[in-house]
C-alpha cells in the first residue's frame, strides 16, 4: 500500500494534496481536533468512547496487537545497531501517531520522544510540507532540530507517513541517540559550543528518502557531517527497519479489523490516556499546591572551559522553581514561573523537550503503565514562560546537553509528587530526589583501530536512586531519564573506547545520608590506552547539589573531577611499581597521587564542566557517577545499616561518626557499631542542634538584610536577576515573601558580568515563512 501512486501528487508549493481525502489540509484537520479538544475538555471532543464502550474486548485486542508490535519492532531493530548507546543502553524508541501527529502508542525505551517526534510532525503540518516537499507513501523524513522540539541534536528521528488506500492515516517515528553529531567537539552531548551554530549537524524535517529508500545526497552529506559514520549508518538502518516493521503492523491490523475501527481507536486511546492520568492523580495524591525548586551550576569562567565567545565566559546558576497544583478532578498544572533565562551554553531546552520529556520520568512513578501516550499531555497544563531556559525566545540557543538541568528541574517535580504520595500514605512510592546523571565521559580522536572516533560513555545511566520513605535508594541503578539503567560490561566499553579500566567500584559517601540513604553512585578509573591525538572532557554538576533529599535526608554528594597527565605510569608498570587501581575512596585524603609521578599534572577540583583537552596514553581520567539523595533524619538510621555501609565501603567512618552519630570500633577493616554508645551520642547531637537553632522569623530577618544589601555571590545574583527580568510575578512574590521595599530591584547590568543577549533577542517564529508550534502556556 505504501508505494508511490502516480495520481497522488500535490499540486505544487502552495498546494493542497488532499492527503486525507476529505477535502481538508492537514492543518485544517489538526485545527479541528484542537478546537474540539479545547471546546469540550475531551480529546477531539470524545466525551464518549464509543468503540471501547461497545466492544471493550475488541478495543483491548487492538491495543494489544499494536502495542505488542511496537515493542517487538524495537527489540528486533535494536540488534542492527553498532552503538552501545542504542544496543546496550536501549536509547531508542518507536512511536505511532495519528494523522494529526498526536501519539497513539509508544514502544518501551526512552519515551521522552512521545512528543518530540509529534512536534516535528506538527511542524510539517503547520508549515505545509504537504505542498512542498510533499508527503507521499514511501517517504522518509529526518529531524533533530532542537528549535522545533528536539531535546538535543544527538537524538535523530526518522519519520515515515502511513497511508491506507492512498489516504494518510498516521505516522510512525523512530529515534536513536547517536554517538556523535558533528558538533564543535566530539561526543553526543559535547561542551564548548555556546550557540546552535556549533551544536552539530542540524536537520529540520528533511525529506531524506523516497520509495522506502534513503536519498544518496542525504547519505553522502549526513555521513560526512559526523565523526562516526559507521555508527551513524547502522543507527539509521535501525530506525528505518523499525519504522517499516511498524508500518506493516498497522497495515495488518487494518486488514484484519478495518480502517474505521483503527481510526476510532487512534482517537479514543488518546482520550483514554488523558482519563488514565486523571484517575492516577486522584488515586495517588492529595489535592493542593506543592512548591519545589532546583538549581544547577554553570561554571564557565574557569580556564578549562574554552569557548569561542567572550560573552559566554560567565559563572551562573540555573533556576527552576516549580509549583504543582493538583486539582480536585485530578487534572494538574505545572508552573515554572520564575525560571532563569536561557544562556550561552548548551543546557537550554525547547518547551516540548519539557512537556514531552517529562513522561519518561512520570511513567517511572505516577503512571507506570504501557498505556502512555499524548493523553497524559492533554490532562496536564504546562506553564513555561517564554524566554526561560526551558522555553528560549532566541533562535541561536544551544541544546546539546539540555539534560544538565532537565534532570534537576524534573527531580524537583518528583520530590513534589513524593510529598503528595506521602500525604496520601503511599510511602512506598516516595522518592527523595534524583541523582544528577553525570559525569559524562566524552571525547575523541584516533582510536585503537586507527580511526577517527568519538566516545560517549553511558555509565551515567546507572546512578544511585533517591531514598524511598521505607527503604534505601538503590546503588548504581538508574537514571531519571531511564528506569532501566545499566552500566554495561567493561569488555564492551573497552571495544568502544581506547580507555583501559583500572577500577570500577561503588562510590563511597555519594548517596545522600538519611534514615534511608540515597543509593550510592559508582566510579571507574580509566587509563588512556592505544589512542592518538586523544581528547576528553567532563560534564556534570560540581559546585552545587542539583537535587536534595526529603524530610531531613541529605542531598547526594556533588561532583568533582580527577584527571592526571605525565603520570609516569608506563615506567611504573614496567618496573612493577605501585599503580593506582580501584576507587578514589576518600577524595579528602587521596591515594591516586601517591602512585603516579610527583611531577604529574593533576587536576582535582570541583570544575565538572570542561572542554576538549588533550590526553596522552597513560594519562588518567576518573568517571564518577553520582548518587541519589536521602530520606529522613540520619540520626534515625538503623545501627546495622550503618555498620553494613561501613563494611561495604559505602560510607566513610568519619561521616558515620559526624552525620549518623555512630560510635564504633574497627578490627582488621571490619567495623562494629556500639548501639548503646551511639544512642547516647545521638542524644548529645540532638541537644547540639537545639543549641544552634534560631526561630525562623529571626533567621528570615537576617536573610532579609543580606538580600537588601545584595550580600550574595555574583552567580546567585545573576540567576535571580534573569528570573526577575523575565517575570514581574515572580519578582513581586519574592519581594512580598521577604518584605522588601517597593523600590528594591536587582538588575543584570549592575553585576559587571557579560549580559550579551539579555535585551536583544529574536525568536524562530520571526523568521519568514515559519510557523512554530506552541504546546504550552507561555
Amino acid at each position, binding site marked *: 500500500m505504501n508505494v508511490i501512486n502516480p495520481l497522488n501528487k500535490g499540486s505544487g508549493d502552495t498546494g493542497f494534496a488532499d492527503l486525507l481525502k476529505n477535502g481538508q489540509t492537514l492543518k485544517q484537520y489538526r485545527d479541528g481536533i484542537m478546537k474540539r479538544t479545547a471546546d469540550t475538555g475531551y480529546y477531539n471532543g470524545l466525551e464518549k468512547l464509543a468503540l471501547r464502550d461497545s466492544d*471493550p*474486548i475488541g478495543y*483491548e*485486542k487492538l491495543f*494489544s*496487537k499494536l502495542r*505488542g*508490535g511496537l515493542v*517487538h519492532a524495537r527489540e*528486533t*531493530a535494536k540488534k*542492527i*545497531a553498532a*552503538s552501545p548507546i542504542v544496543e546496550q543502553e536501549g536509547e531508542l524508541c518507536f512511536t505511532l501517531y495519528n494523522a494529526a501527529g498526536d501519539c497513539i502508542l509508544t514502544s*518501551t525505551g526512552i519515551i521522552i520522544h512521545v512528543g518530540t517526534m509529534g512536534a516535528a510532525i506538527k511542524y510539517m503540518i503547520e508549515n505545509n510540507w504537504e505542498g512542498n516537499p510533499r508527503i507521499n507513501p514511501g517517504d522518509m523524513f529526518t529531524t533533530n532540530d532542537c528549535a522545533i522540539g528536539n531535546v538535543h541534536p544527538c537524538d535523530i528521528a526518522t519519520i515515515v507517513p502511513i497511508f491506507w488506500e492512498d489516504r494518510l492515516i498516521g505516522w510512525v517515528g523512530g529515534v536513536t541517540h547517536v554517538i556523535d553529531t558533528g558538533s564543535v567537539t566530539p561526543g553526543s552531548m559535547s561542551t564548548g559550543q555556546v550557540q546552535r551554530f556549533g551544536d552539530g549537524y542540524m536537520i529540520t524535517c528533511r525529506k531524506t528518502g523516497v520509495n522506502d529508500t534513503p536519498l544518496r545526497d542525504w547519505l553522502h552529506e549526513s555521513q560526512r557531517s559526523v565523526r562516526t559514520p*559507521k555508527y551513524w*549508518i*547502522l543507527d539509521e*538502518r*535501525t530506525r*528505518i*527497519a523499525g519504522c517499516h516493521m511498524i508500518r506493516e503492523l498497522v497495515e495488518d491490523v487494518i486488514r484484519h479489523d478495518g480502517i474505521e475501527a483503527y481510526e476510532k481507536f487512534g482517537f479514543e486511546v488518546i482520550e483514554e490516556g488523558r482519563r488514565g492520568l486523571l*484517575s*492516577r492523580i486522584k*488515586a495517588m495524591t492529595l489535592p493542593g499546591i506543592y512548591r519545589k525548586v532546583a538549581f544547577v551550576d554553570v561554571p564557565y569562567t574557569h580556564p578549562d572551559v574554552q569557548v569561542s565567545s567572550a560573552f559566554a565566559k560567565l559563572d551562573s546558576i540555573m533556576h527552576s522553581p516549580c509549583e504543582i497544583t493538583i486539582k480536585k478532578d485530578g487534572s494538574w498544572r505545572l508552573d515554572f514561573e520564575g525560571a532563569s533565562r536561557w544562556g550561552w551554553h548548551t543546557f537550554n531546552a525547547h518547551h516540548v523537550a519539557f512537556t514531552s520529556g517529562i513522561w519518561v520520568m512520570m511513567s*517511572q*512513578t505516577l503512571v*507506570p*503503565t*504501557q*498505556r502512555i501516550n499524548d493523553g497524559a499531555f492533554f490532562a496536564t497544563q504546562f506553564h513555561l514562560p517564554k524566554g526561560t531556559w526551558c522555553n528560549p525566545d532566541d533562535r541561536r540557543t544551544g541544546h546539546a546537553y539540555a539534560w544538565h538541568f532537565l534532570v534537576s528541574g524534573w527531580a524537583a517535580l518528583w520530590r513534589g509528587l513524593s510529598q503528595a504520595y506521602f500525604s496520601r500514605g503511599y510511602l*512506598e512510592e516516595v*522518592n527523595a530526589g534524583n541523582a544528577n546523571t553525570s559525569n559524562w565521559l566524552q571525547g575523541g580522536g584516533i582510536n*585503537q583501530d586507527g580511526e577517527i572516533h568519538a566516545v560517549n560513555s553511558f555509565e551515567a545511566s*546507572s546512578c544511585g*536512586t533517591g531514598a524511598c520513605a521505607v527503604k534505601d535508594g*538503590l*546503588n548504581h*541503578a538508574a537514571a531519571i531519564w531511564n*528506569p*532501566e*539503567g*545499566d552500566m554495561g*560490561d567493561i*569488555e*564492551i566499553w*573497552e571495544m568502544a573506547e581506547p580507555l*583501559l*579500566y*583500572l*577500577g*570500577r*567500584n561503588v562510590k563511597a559517601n555519594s548517596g545522600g545520608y538519611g534514615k534511608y540513604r540515597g543509593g550510592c553512585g559508582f566510579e571507574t578509573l580509566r587509563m588512556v*590506552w592505544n589512542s592518538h591525538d586523544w581528547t576528553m572532557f567532563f560534564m556534570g554538576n560540581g559546585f552545587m547539589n542539583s537535587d536534595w533529599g526529603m524530610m531531613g535526608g541529605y542531598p547526594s554528594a556533588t561532583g568533582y573531577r580527577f584527571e592526571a597527565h605525565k603520570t609516569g605510569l608506563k615506567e611504573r608498570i614496567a618496573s*612493577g611499581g605501585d*599503580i593506582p*587501581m*580501584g*576507587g578514589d575512596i576518600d577524595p579528602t585524603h587521596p591515594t591516586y597521587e601517591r602512585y603516579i609521578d610527583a611531577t604529574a599534572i593533576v587536576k582535582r577540583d570541583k570544575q565538572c564542566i570542561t572542554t576538549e583537552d588533550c590526553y596522552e596514553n597513560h594519562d588518567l581520567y576518573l568517571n564518577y557517577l553520582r548518587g541519589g539523595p536521602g530520606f529522613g533524619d540520619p540520626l534515625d538510621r538503623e545501627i546495622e545499616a550503618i555498620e553494613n555501609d561501613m563494611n*561495604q565501603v559505602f560510607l566513610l567512618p568519619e561521616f558515620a561518626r559526624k552525620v549518623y552519630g555512630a560510635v564504633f570500633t574497627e578490627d582488621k577493616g571490619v567495623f562494629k557499631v556500639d548501639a548503646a554508645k551511639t544512642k547516647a551520642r545521638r542524644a548529645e547531637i540532638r541537644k547540639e542542634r537545639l543549641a544552634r537553632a534560631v526561630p525562623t522569623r529571626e533567621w528570615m530577618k537576617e536573610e532579609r538584610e543580606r538580600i537588601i544589601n545584595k550580600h550574595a555571590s555574583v552567580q546567585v545574583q545573576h540567576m535571580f536577576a534573569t528570573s526577575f527580568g523575565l517575570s514581574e510575578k515572580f519578582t513581586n512574590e519574592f519581594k512580598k515573601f521577604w518584605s522588601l521595599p517597593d523600590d528594591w530591584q536587582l538588575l543584570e547590568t549592575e553585576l559587571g558580568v557579560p549580559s550579551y543577549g539579555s535585551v536583544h533577542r529574536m525568536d524562530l517564529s520571526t523568521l519568514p515563512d515559519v510557523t512554530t508550534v506552541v504546546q504550552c502556556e507561555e
Partner: protein
Amino acid sequence: MGQQNIPVQVLGIDAGGTMTDTFFVRADGRFVVGKAQSNPGDESLAIYNSSVDALAHWNRKVEDVYPELVTCVYSGTAMLNRILMRKGLKVGLLCNRGFEQIHSMGRALQSYLGYALEDRIHLNTHRYDEPLVPVSRTRGVTERTDVQGSIVIPVREAEVRQATRELVAAESQAIVICFLQSHKNETSEQIARDFVKDELKKLGSPIPVFASVDYYPSRKESHRMNTVILEAYGAEPSRETLKKVSDRFKANGAKFDLRVMATHGGTISWKAKELARTIVSGPIGGVIGAKLLGECLGDENIACSDIGGTSFDVALITKGSFAIKSDPDMARLVLSLPLVAMDSVGAGAGSFVRLDPYSKSIKLGPDSAGYRVGTCWPESGLDTVTVSDCHVVLGYLNPLNFLGGAIKLDVERARQHIKAQIADPLGLSIEDAAAGVIELLDLTLSEYLRANISAKGYNPAEFTCFSYGGAGPVHTYGYTEGVGFKDVVVPAWAAGFSAFGCACADFEYRYDKSVDLGLPENASDAAKAGACKTLQEAWSELATKVIDEFVINGFKPEDVLLIPGYKMQYMGQLNDLEIVSPVTSASKAEDWNKIVDAFELQYTRVYASSARSPELGFSVTGAILRGTVATQKPVLPEDANAGPTPPAAAKLGTRPFYRHKKWVDAVIYKMESLLAGNHIVGPAIIESDSTTFVVPNGFETTIDKHRLFHLKEVK
C-alpha cells in the same frame, strides 16, 4: 497393554519444583507417564516413586524395568533452586585489583531482570539479590589485559599467592578466577590459576579452582564471572545429587549411564566438567521433543508452544535446528551459557485476571494462581479470578474431572467472582466477559507467536505448530486461529511432553570460544585464507575439549560427529547471528566466501535486506563446536488406521460450551480411547486425566498413527 515381553528402552525424567514426571517408552513406541511429588531432600526417591506410578500401567516393577533401559535422561530444577535459595558453596573470587566490587555490584539490569514490563519501568519496585560471593571473600590482584589481547600490566605472583592464602583463611570452599579480557588472551589468568593451585598445594588445601578461561571463555565479564561462580557455587553440590540418583538406579540394576539435559539442547554426562549449563533444562525438553517429532513428520520448520500455569514459552525450529542464545539470564543473573532460545510471555492458564483500576482495561498476570487453579476451587483460598475460572464457566474444563478428578471445581463460585470483578464493571454478561478474557489471552499468544516467526524472517505458512504443556491443548485452537500455520499438532501426551523430549535428546557437548576476526568486504584472498586459518584453529581447540568429554564416558574419538558453527556480524555491530557452518573445515578464500554468504542469507531473513551492511565488512566473533554420538531414542507408536469414526466407548456424553456469544453442546471424548484415523468435528472436547483438548465449532481434528492430533480450521 500388558505385553510384558516388549522391553522398555527409554526413560525421560522431568523433576520439577512440585512434581517429578517420568516417561517410559517401550520398543514398540508405547509409553506411560508417571507422576510423584518431588522430594528436594532426596530426588532419587521421587524418581523411584514416579517410576513405580508409571510402570503400574504396564503391571511392571521398577526392579525388572531398570535393567532393561538403554538410555535415561534427567532434567530438573534442583540446581536452579540451589541458586535461588542461595544454598551453595562458600566461593572465593580472585579478580583484577580495583574491581573487587564488580560481582556484588552486579549489572544494573539485574535489579529488574525477570520483571513484567510495567514493573520494569516502575523504579521503586527494583531490587538487587544477594551476590553469590560477598566482597569479604573477594581479592584483587594487579593485572590488566587490553581489548586486543595485549598484556598491559602482567600479573604479579606475590599478590596471587597472598590472595590465595587470604581466601583459604576466609574459609572458601572453591576459588574462582576471572580477569578482564581473559577471553581474548588467557595467559594472565592461566598463570594466576597455576600460582593459586601451587599455593593451595603448599597449604595442603584440596579446594577446587575454576578459571574462567577453562570454563566459559566468552566476552562480557559480568556474564562470564557469574557463570563460573555458578559452576563453583552450585554445580558440585548438584553433582552430588545426580550421583545419588545414579547410585539408586544402579542399586536397582540399571546398566545405563545417566545423562542430564543441558541448556544447549543436548544431554551431557553427570560427570561432565561444565555442569552449570544444567541449570535450566525442563522447558528445553519440549523443544527437543518437537524437533524429533518434526523429523518423523518431515517438518523442518516448527513453532514450539508450551503453555503452563504461569507462562507461554515459544521456541522456533527452523531448517531442523533451534536457535541458541549465548548470553541469557536466569535466576536474575546474566550468564554466558548457550541456551536454546525461548521467549516467554508471563501469561498462562493460571494467570490472574484483573481490571486496571485506572483504565478499566483487562490485565492478565503477571502473577498466577499456580497449583491453586482459581476461585473455582473453593479450597484454594483465592478470590481473584483466573483464566482457569473463565474456562470452567464456559464449559471448557470438566469441573468434576480436573486433574483426573483429584479436585472438584465450583462453577457457581467462579461465575460470581467473574460477575463482580470483570463482567459488571465492563457491562458484559458473565459469559461474554469470560470469553473476552480467553480471546484476549489467545490473541496475545497468537500475536506473540506470529511476531517471533516474522522476527526470524519467516512466514507462519512455512511452519507446523506444536502445542503442548498441561494447559496447551485448551488454548491451541485460540492461539493458532488465523495465524495460517501449515499444520497444528497436539500430541496425546502433551502433559508429559517435556519428559518425553528429554528422552529424545542427543548426547551432545557444545563448546564456544570468542574470536575476533574482521575482514573488509573486498579483502584479498590471502586475508580471507588467514581468517579461515584462525577460525579453524579455534574449531580444532574446541574439538579437543568436546572429544575429551566423550572419552570420559568411554567413547572413542572416531565415534564423535563434529558440527562446526560460528557467530558473525557486520563489523562494528554488537549483535551477532549464530550460523551452522556451510563448510566442515576452513582454509581457503572460497571457504570464507561461503561463510559470509551463509551469514548474509540469514541476516536478510531476520532484518530485511535494507538493513544489510556489507560495506562495513564482516566479523566473526565466536567459534562453536558441537559433537554428538549416537544414542537410543524413543520410537513413536505406529497404530493401524481404525477409520474416521471414533469407537462408541470413546464418547462420554456432551457438555454445554460457550463461544462466540452462544452456548452449544460439545461432545466429550475420552482421549485414551480414540484410535488412529479417528476424525472429530467441533464442537468437541477431548479429555484425559492430565489435559483437555478443545475443538470448537469451525475446527476439526484427526488423530494419526503416532497418536498426534492434527487440528484444522474448517474452511
